[in-house]
């Protein structure tokens, strides 16, 4: 769809007009993520076209974005979630990458806003399907949503070859002895 139509503008509208239209629409549809995405995409497209249509500009934008995202990450790790959130909010919508949505989700997750966090993780994973970090975050939420809280069964923890009692060892030795005897040898001479 024509990005200008989405924003309700005539093709070739000025920079200021586009920005005003975007703000107007964003306020109208603030509660509707699907519409919001549409508007964001239209705005991005127009801005990028105006910048010359090349990919060099968005590339540098992205680089700029990721520098401050590193800062956001550091703040989150230091536990200063509110500061991280205001940094994220200060970033213009056009620069919001998959990582931005992931970090926003992390901040919301810390604050206990789980539904919004789930939405942002979803979006990050959707924008960059190859990224393991985003996918893991999304999948953990999905699993918790369907299963709730489950502690691991302590009986199942030691399952497998780690579980080896004295009885197991004796019966193992006996077995090995039988096998050896079948082949003509002997492992335990006394039996």
């Amino acid at each position, binding site marked *: 769809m024509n990005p200008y139509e989405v924003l309700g503008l005539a093709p070739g509208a000025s920079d200021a007009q586009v920005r005003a239209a975007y703000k107007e629409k964003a306020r109208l549809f603030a509660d509707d993520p699907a519409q919001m995405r549409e508007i964001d995409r239209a705005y991005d497209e127009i801005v990028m076209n105006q910048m010359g249509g090349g990919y060099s500009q968005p590339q540098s934008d992205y680089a700029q974005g990721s520098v401050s995202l590193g800062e956001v990450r550091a703040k989150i790790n230091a536990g200063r979630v509110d500061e991280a959130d205001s940094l994220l909010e200060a970033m213009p919508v056009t620069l919001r990458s998959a990582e931005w949505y992931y970090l926003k989700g992390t901040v919301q997750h810390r604050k206990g806003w789980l539904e919004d966090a789930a939405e942002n993780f979803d979006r990050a994973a959707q924008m960059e399907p190859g990224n393991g970090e985003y996918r893991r975050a999304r999948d953990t939420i999905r699993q918790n949503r369907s299963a*709730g809280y489950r502690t691991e069964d302590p009986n199942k923890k030691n399952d497998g070859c780690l579980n080896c009692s004295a009885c197991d060892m004796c019966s193992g030795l006996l077995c090995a002895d039988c096998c050896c005897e079948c082949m003509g040898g002997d492992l335990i001479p006394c039996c």
Partner: protein
Amino acid sequence: MFGYVKAYKPELKCKDFDVYQGVYCSLCRRLGRDYGLLARLTLNYDFALLALARLSAAEECCGFEASRCSFNPTKKCLNCTGGAEHLAFAAAAAMIMCYYKVLDNIADERSWFKRLLFYLIKPYFSLKRKQAMKKFSQIDEVIAEVMRQQTQTERSRTASIDAAAHPSALAMSRLLTLEMKTEKSETLERFGYLVGRWVYLIDALDDCEKDRVSGSYNVFNLKFEKEEEKKEYAAGAIRLTAAELGECFEALQPKRFGAILENIIQFGMENTLQKVLKEESK
């Protein structure tokens, strides 16, 4: 909104059940001693959890002694010998909460008869609230502020589940951490936040049908039209909260009562959710 957070008895060890009931009984006793016989009737499991969680994070252990229930003298129960300040805190919180609940009901109730009833009991709770405020004035500040936020969010009719649950979540978080001296206050804060959020969400799910008929604000009704979708989504949001709460509980590593809290989170909450879901489909 009361009485959703309960332990699931079949999965609880006898010794833990005795302790759980002991805390419940002690809180009941405390309510009776501080606020009179009638106040005991307001007791519910949500405030037992508040007392339990605060006691579990407290520095010194409250001891228990065997005693008898004055309502049912043939029944023996445990009674806390220590931790009086936490029990008094939970009792005060219960009284203040009840007062605001009555105010809320007066504002929401449509039938004039029920409203009259609430008007009649209001002076009683108002008195009890004043008594509670003498000792714990911060509780009243916290709850008054939260109630104001709650009204605001309800008026704004937000469709965001997180925004709708925020005031209640905040209330529980503050109630749990007020005057608590612990090195893990941040984890405790989150624990409280998630408990409050869980209670809000399950209450919203429980009231879905009622609110749909009366046209009151309910975040789940706002978001979904179809009954099935709504229930599935709500159950998911509630389970997700419980799962996060479980992780938070693991990080909390409470000094005591761990088994009871774990039982509540792992089985009790799921059990309540199942019950509410079943009721809704009737």
